[in-house]
């Protein structure tokens, strides 16, 4: 149909033209005019985009965060904080960076810091942290996670966790085990798991992850607990270091629990949410995790706080360190970096604010006393002692359930993740899956293959 025959005449042509024009304009706007967010300082006031704001569904945490923003801005009238919801999402990180939408100060997990520093996707903040208050009270190994080989600083740790053994006290009792005497060694874990699984009704004694690289991550934690390591550095080159008696024992115990004792359940390829769900529903006895899992089990999966306890990792020769912190947009101006360091120190690395947080949490009847990120374990010395005392004084959780873990914490050395962690975990994930899904898995062969693959990863880097 020709447009000239349309009774609508000119107006009939105007609509599609206008539509096309509007769409083209939208497209051009989307393409070319985005601000990179790096230089919006004006009139001497620094505008600072930061993420880490809790979602609205966490009403108390959100309110507290917004209150902190207001207090900080009042104390620092030359800084305007623009908070953004969300944390580190690897799926959107690069898109945000490429599109100039990455916040000036962004949240990271310890796992990602090394890669971001290598790729120069975080700003050097060495000068800005030199005179930062409380700098000397922070644990040095945690600061090193945010440093390159020359000691330049690229971010700040704000919270730290180490792995322990979470166990269900109620199930322990039901299985005739003493909940005040948690397993101390992997042999103890195996015995306890067998007894718990004997309760039947699909009850699982011990569970482990084996999906989406989490199997590799957990194998690492379990190997560390036996004194083994994933990789070792020699003459500046990294090599796989897990094909050892400790590495074999880690797989062998899991294989025996799965196939000889039948204490790991029939369903495998589990990841953290699956295991937390099992724990929350009272169908799981033990798994290796950090303390923050207890809150998730109780809040999201219906568990009762009093049922869950945290013990040191079995064998306790070392424990995997993890945690979170903040890094800075590589395009951020020095003024923004300075303001960002000020914000991070004031909000996260400030004993006065932490002390107030503990009181606020206790007033709101939210959990206090679990060794978890609300009270970040990043300090050492007198500051750490002061924070621990405040926690103890305000505790509303059964702190006795975590006492064994807390007592062992200063004695068990923390070890960080290996280089190229995600790629290494992918290799170990596959080996973990073989162990947990194949009755005739050849552990020696699995270790040999995984060693070759990990060495290939390190040789290529």
């Amino acid at each position: 149909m020709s447009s000239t025959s349309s009774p609508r005449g000119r107006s009939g042509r105007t609509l599609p033209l206008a539509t096309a024009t509007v769409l083209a304009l939208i497209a051009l706007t989307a393409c070319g005019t985005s601000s990179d967010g790096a230089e919006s300082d004006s009139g001497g006031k620094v505008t600072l985009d930061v993420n880490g704001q809790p979602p609205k569904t966490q009403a108390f945490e959100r309110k507290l965060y917004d209150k902190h923003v207001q207090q900080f801005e009042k104390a620092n009238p030359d800084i305007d904080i623009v908070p953004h919801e969300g944390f580190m999402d690897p799926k959107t990180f690069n898109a945000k960076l490429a599109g100039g939408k990455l916040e000036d100060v962004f949240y990271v997990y310890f796992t990602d810091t090394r890669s971001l520093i290598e790729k120069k996707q975080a700003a050097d903040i060495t000068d800005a942290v030199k005179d930062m208050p409380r700098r000397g009270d922070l644990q040095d190994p945690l600061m090193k996670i945010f440093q390159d080989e020359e000691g330049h600083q690229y971010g700040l740790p704000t919270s730290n966790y180490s792995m322990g053994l979470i166990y269900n006290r109620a199930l322990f009792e039901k299985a005739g085990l003493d909940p005040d005497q948690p397993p101390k060694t992997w042999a103890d874990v195996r015995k306890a798991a067998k007894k718990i699984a004997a309760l039947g009704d699909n009850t699982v004694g011990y569970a482990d992850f084996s999906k989406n690289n989490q199997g590799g991550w957990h194998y690492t934690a379990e190997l560390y607990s036996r004194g083994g390591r994933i990789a070792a550095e020699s003459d500046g080159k990294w090599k796989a270091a897990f094909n050892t008696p400790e590495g074999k024992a880690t797989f062998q115990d899991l294989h025996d629990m799965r196939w000889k004792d039948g204490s790991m359940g029939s369903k495998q390829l589990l990841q953290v949410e699956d295991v937390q769900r099992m724990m929350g529903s009272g169908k799981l006895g033990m798994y290796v995790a950090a303390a923050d899992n207890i809150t998730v089990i109780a809040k999201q999966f219906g568990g009762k706080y009093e049922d869950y306890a945290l013990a040191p990792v079995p064998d306790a020769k070392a424990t995997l360190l993890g945690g979170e912190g903040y890094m800075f947009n590589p395009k951020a101006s020095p003024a923004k970096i300075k303001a960002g360091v000020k914000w991070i120190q004031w909000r996260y690395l400030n004993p006065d604010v932490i002390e107030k947080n503990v009181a606020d949490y206790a007033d709101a009847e939210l959990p206090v006393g679990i060794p978890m990120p609300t009270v970040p374990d990043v300090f050492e010395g007198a500051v750490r002692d002061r924070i621990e005392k405040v926690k103890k004084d305000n505790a509303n959780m059964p702190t006795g359930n975590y006492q064994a873990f807390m007592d062992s914490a200063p004695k068990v050395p923390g070890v960080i993740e290996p280089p190229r962690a995600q790629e290494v975990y992918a290799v170990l994930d596959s080996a973990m899956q073989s162990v947990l899904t194949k009755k005739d898995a050849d552990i020696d062969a699995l270790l040999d293959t995984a060693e070759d693959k990990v060495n290939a990863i390190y040789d290529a880097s």
Partner: protein
Amino acid sequence: MSTSLKTPARDTAVAPAPSPAPRRPRAARRRALRENVTAYGFLSAAVVIFALFSWWPIVRNVLLGFQDVNFATGNTWNGTSNFAKLFDDPLFLTAWKNTGLFTLYALVLGFAVPFLTAVLLNEFRHARAYFRVLVYLPVMLPPVVVALMWKWFYDPGPGLFNEILRTLHLPTSAWLDSSSTSLISLVIVSTWANMGTTTLIYLAALQTIPGELYEAAELDGANVWQRLRHVTIPQTRFVLLVLLLLQIVATMQVFTEPYVMTGGGPEDSTVTVMFLVYRYAFVYNDFGTASALSLLLLIALGVFSALYLRVTRAAKE
């Protein structure tokens, strides 16, 4: 709309403007432009949208495949290093093998089952619409919901399938938890979730077959199998071929099922090409290698797409 776009071209071709009247073609062009302004309006919107959201990303992906990608410091050309890295990755061949097997199984199951279902539905005289809705229902479910639901069905402990097998005193299966059954388990999910659309297309094709052909075949004494072989299949050959090619293109891009249900395991038995692309891009933060692998997949899919175009063009002619 398409007529009005073609008309001026045909006018010019049939009756070219005489040489001493230079203003006439320009006037004709102007008139044509005026007459077709609506069509051009619609067309430009589509072109802009396609260019921005389809063509440019494809071009950009090709470029990234030959670059060391760093969105902070800028990308640098690195020749074929990304491809060399891929070829060194032991998972590269595994991913192609798994994708090939998935496609093959999906064709055997996903091709035969909807076709036979359509033949069966076509035979129904009553409640045909009801059964059609039933067959189409899974298509309306979000893919992730389907994957999570089937994950429970496949649970080797208290899962639905093993409970049924136990009730029937039959041996149970590890389903997703075994490297020998995981891939086929995913194919079953994919077939169940997607067969509704294919079945309806087959059904529509079956209903275009003239009833006289079946009557003649019956008069000649053809049984059900012979009618299927000599009437139904030849009459729906074109639709079967087109859907076969489209299905190859779709199943080679399988991602949701392995991502949600198995995470590529056990023992990498469900790592597909798209899953590996995802891992390179979003787990290893290596967009260059992810783009290189996407490019290889694009080329493979391009071959099947070209075949599809050729088949549809041949059918039109």
